[in-house]
């Protein structure tokens, strides 16, 4: 799945694999900002999504089907069961985390986040089955 939008104040170009996509990076690289931009994109393009962070992770619905679930700072609340449930409920899960998440039964992709010439780019660079 590729998410691109040149009309945003900060352009985004995001490539996601099915399953869990993980960004592990320094502070201030735009991880949380990227999550809010993708949320804006989903609202604008009517893509079913969930945005979850450490303040609202306990409101996860028991059932549902989403195209994308966004997990900000997933290392704070993303237990293996929680992440597996997210992957069951969505085609694509994108999470930022300080540690490598543990998920079973789903593909795990490590991705890079870069900001160049006004565009936030997400690119897969390693895949674990």
């Amino acid at each position, binding site marked *: 799945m590729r998410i691109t939008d040149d009309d945003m*104040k*900060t352009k985004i170009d995001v490539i996601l694999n099915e399953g869990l996509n993980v960004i592990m*990076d*320094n*502070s*201030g*690289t*735009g991880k*949380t*900002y990227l999550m809010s931009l993708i949320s804006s994109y989903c609202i604008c393009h009517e893509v079913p999504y969930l945005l979850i962070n*450490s*303040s609202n992770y306990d409101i996860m619905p028991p059932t549902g089907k989403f195209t994308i679930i966004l997990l900000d*700072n997933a*290392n*704070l609340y993303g237990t293996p069961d929680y992440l597996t449930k997210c992957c069951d409920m969505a085609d694509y899960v994108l999470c930022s985390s*300080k*540690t490598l998440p543990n998920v079973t039964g789903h593909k795990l992709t490590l991705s890079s986040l870069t*900001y160049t010439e*006004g565009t*936030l780019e997400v690119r897969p660079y390693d895949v674990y089955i």
Partner: protein
Amino acid sequence: MSLTIFTRRDKVPTDLQIIDNNDLYFIGYSNIPADAVTAKILSSVDGVERVSNTLFDSKFIKDATLSKDMLSTGAKTLLNIMQHSDKCFNTVECGENALICLKDLTSGYALVEVCCVSFVGDSSCDLIIDGKLFTDFNEATDYMYHGGESG
């Protein structure tokens, strides 16, 4: 004065409140002071410059000035530590670049339960970690990496 660090939650004195949600605490109680350490934190963690107590220049949106609430959680955590020496702030959401900035702080309290930092440069610091004084940041990070056991 020294920055005081604890490597485990149970080592924090019971009369010292631990703040885990640095984002919300920063929004309510902290700002962007005009001093050299703050400028260095903003530059090295977020790559931005201070405009006022509540504003900074965005690096993602050209010519935009943003509210302090839009700083990264790593930068917010460091600024919380600097401004509230009666609280202990959890650094769990700090990236490696933010953890390196701990060496520049000279007061306050931080909880650092996870620390994996590789640092090259002037390693002088003034840190008290679990009651032990560290003046070399590489020795300090080595101690914290091993969870408070001398490595």
